[in-house]
């Protein structure tokens, strides 16, 4: 009997979702997303915007930035668990061979794994974030939908780039625990480097390190678009990118993300010996 096309893909996707989100992992993360999103939206957004009344665009950007803070970190934890630890463990335990035995091209196997590990997490993260925004500030969100979308695109570029890099690392070292440790180290190293470069820009009055950093993390450019960066030397405005510049940084950031994922796909499809 001929097997229907697409079934092996769904089999792998279903198995991956079952493995990545065993009951009640999905529900616990949904709870954490919801509680952190609303708590930070209420605590930070309200008082800050009331003390300094701003335009709708600046307000909605501030709202999105505040409500995304902790949930984005929770999202990263979920990604580290699923992509870095989960994928690395599949190599370590040898279960990846079972997946590769399906009559499916390797890149489709990786797509199914990523759809489960990254797609479901992203869907839940964005779903709860937009739900919170539409509940708390429907009029402002509808009036500034472009700013909301740009804010999310800018903020997600860096975590997605990190995911792609760590996916390559997990495939290369083939150990879940070690890949997870390396992922955490890389995340904190990049955060420290980001802080140092920002401080360097402010103290020297040269925005070049920040511009370079913004390619990796376009949310910085968007932040300085709404709140221009002032220099300690002379107090003049150091960097205030235009909206088009911000879009260019976001485009650059996603080019890096796409390039990193293409490398991961190429490595998994052609170079990986199992």
């Amino acid at each position, binding site marked *: 009997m001929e097997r229907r096309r697409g079934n092996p893909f769904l089999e792998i996707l279903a198995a991956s979702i079952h493995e990545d989100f065993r*009951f009640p992992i999905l529900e616990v993360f949904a709870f954490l997303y919801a509680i952190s999103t*609303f708590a930070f939206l209420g605590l930070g957004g*309200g008082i800050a915007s009331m003390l300094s009344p701003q335009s709708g665009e600046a307000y909605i950007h501030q709202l999105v930035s505040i409500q995304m803070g902790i949930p984005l970190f929770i999202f990263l934890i979920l990604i580290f668990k699923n992509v870095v630890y989960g994928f690395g463990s599949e190599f370590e335990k040898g279960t990846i061979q079972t997946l590769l035995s399906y009559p499916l091209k390797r890149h489709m196997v990786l797509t199914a794994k990523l759809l489960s590990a990254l797609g479901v997490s992203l869907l*839940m993260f964005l779903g709860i974030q937009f739900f919170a925004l539409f509940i708390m500030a429907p009029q*402002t969100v509808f009036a500034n939908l472009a700013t909301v979308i740009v804010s999310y695109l800018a903020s997600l570029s860096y975590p997605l780039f990190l995911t792609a890099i760590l996916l390559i690392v997990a495939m290369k070292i083939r150990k879940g625990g070690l890949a997870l440790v390396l992922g955490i180290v890389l995340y904190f190293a990049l955060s420290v480097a980001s802080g140092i470069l920002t401080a360097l820009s402010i103290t020297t009055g040269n925005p070049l390190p920040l511009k370079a950093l913004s390619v990796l993390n376009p949310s910085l450019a968007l932040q300085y678009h709404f709140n221009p960066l002032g220099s300690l030397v002379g107090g003049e405005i150091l960097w205030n990118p235009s909206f088009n510049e911000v879009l260019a940084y976001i485009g650059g950031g996603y080019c890096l993300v796409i390039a990193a994922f293409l490398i991961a796909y190429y490595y998994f499809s052609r170079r990986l010996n199992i």
Partner: protein
Amino acid sequence: MKRISIALGRIGAVFLAVCCALAILVFIPPANVGISTSGTFPLNPETLMLVGTPSFSLNPQVSVKVELNTNNTVEFYIINVLREEIMREVRLNNLTKFNEFMKNNADRILLNKTIGEGSTTLEYTPNGIVNATFVIVNRNLHSANISYKIELLTSIAPKVRIIPAITYLGPIGALLTGQWVFAKLKYKRERS
């Protein structure tokens, strides 16, 4: 067990988890941010008074609580307009000009309540950013003695928005999860 049943069940369980988080947040009471205005004044017949200076900038996280005490029936308005603008349009607190202004700017009325004798407390949470100006109108032929207190409150999750969300999400979540649990029990019974 059908995959669609499992998928819907898990979605339902996620809805219930979100409802649980929202229910916890609803129990956290709003906090006074320390900005308030109060006063007592007599309001002449067929006239109005702008109360609270200046206009408050409100957003969905910052709600306003108004306590009014009056000895006559009055109307209370919250209007999305700067105080200076309404003062320019409605000179000398002229009721006819105010009615005309309200007719032309009906879409900017955020709240309109008729307040009877005694003490009344109102709360208002906007949907977006608004400049709230508060107006008390006495349309009677007798004057009214009014005392008011307007406070700004910040809440983690305004009840007016969260409770309807729980009302819709909760039953959907329970329904979806229920069919999953039922199907799972049935599946276990069939296997044993």
